[in-house]
């Protein structure tokens, strides 16, 4: 309750009209960001424990969130050869969600091969897409991810689905990616 209240207070502060519209001085805006970040940190153990209590093997998992997914940066998916991705769907109906997981390049710098399975063991169709070079050079980004593993995840209403992701030596359901650079006359 204490953790959730921290986020509640932060949301209260951020309802100020300057926070909503962006008419605060820069250092005040920076403080709004700082408070939101602290609020999210405080809320995370509550979310994590709720998910663990819902999953049969939840207590054995070391769950992490990746707050920098918006710039294709996730330490766990970049470091681990095998991992479980849990996706919780807050929407009250089933959905197909395009999951994007940042991954590093293979040893020779090419696109790596990955296999993804759902909870029944069914292999998923995946693409390994290059991360656009402007994202790689965003100031402050310190990530080894050069690619994103992309697949369409089927999620139940107001519930979660787990996906088993493992780095592979060869492609399986991964289609061959066609890459074409469109050049001008010069």
């Amino acid at each position: 309750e204490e953790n959730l209240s921290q986020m509640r207070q932060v949301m209260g502060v951020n309802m100020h009209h300057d926070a909503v519209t962006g008419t605060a001085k820069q250092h005040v805006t920076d403080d709004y960001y700082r408070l939101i970040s602290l609020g999210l940190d405080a809320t995370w153990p509550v979310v994590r424990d709720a998910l663990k209590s819902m999953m049969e093997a939840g207590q054995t998992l070391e769950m992490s969130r990746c707050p920098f997914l918006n710039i294709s940066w996730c330490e766990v998916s970049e470091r681990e050869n095998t991992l479980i991705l849990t996706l919780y769907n807050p929407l009250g109906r089933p959905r197909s969600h395009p999951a994007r997981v940042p991954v590093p390049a293979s040893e020779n710098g090419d696109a790596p091969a990955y296999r993804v399975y759902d909870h029944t063991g069914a292999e998923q169709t995946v693409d390994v897409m290059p991360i656009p070079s402007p994202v790689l050079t965003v100031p402050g980004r310190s990530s080894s991810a050069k690619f994103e593993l992309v697949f369409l995840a089927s999620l139940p209403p107001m519930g979660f689905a787990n996906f088993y992701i493992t780095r592979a030596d060869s492609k399986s359901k991964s289609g061959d990616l066609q890459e074409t650079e469109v050049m001008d006359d010069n």
Partner: protein
Amino acid sequence: TADFTLSNGEVSVTFNGKTRTTKGMKRNGMKREFTQELLYYISMEGNNSAAGFRASGAYIFRPNGKDPVSPGEPTRTIVYRGDVVEEVHQEYGNWLSQVTRLYGSSPWLEMKWLVGPIPFQDGVGKEVINRMHLDMATGGKFHTDSNGRESLTRTRDKRDSFTLGEEYESVAGNYYPINSRLFLRDEGQGTQFTVLTDRAQGGGSIHDGELELMIHRRCLRDDAFGVGEALNETAHGEGLVASGSHYALLSEVNEGMDMIKEEEKRIFYEPLAVFSPTTMTLQDFT
């Protein structure tokens, strides 16, 4: 220089091979000319000595002139075609880029933009927009949402509650708050073009058949409405980088709102992603 197309069976978007910008969109037998560009307005510098000399800043958007500036044709364009998603990656110099993508059989075209740090060394404030144009007869009207609920019809250079005299700010005077959606309707054709945002933004329809949304701005003068500093991120060294997505749909007028409400919920209620390292075998996992 041949034209190329992004397609997923449900919707297809054609790009002009020479300029590498979009030129057409097709879905369910509907076919429209469709151009989409990232552009920027130059901020009014002013001196805040009087209303006519007001600077563009945090409180007000006031471009210097009616026409946005083009950053030029993309310096790099790469097309990726996979089994799950098709993407076009485009760069405009070193501070503006975009990924245009179509997933699976989704009817929604995603435009994911990345803007910044906006260069300011030339002493010019810049306000970056995503502008889309279709061959639709819209009669000076477009539609915006009201906090994600009902849609309001906006008419260019007109106000419902008073008689507007001459509109001296033809761009800013026709900008409206967009919380989640804006759309164009051509009643004659029976077609609708909708764009959903992933955050509140300013937007307008400055010409018929056109929609634009403000995605990032860097103004170098305080607008003297009370902030006391310019909307310029010098405290962050180079400046900020903003990233986000617009989702576009070409539909019939009577099918649009159903699909829009569904997609808005998908954007708002994005799944939570949690990552766990494991030594489990696949068999143990299943």
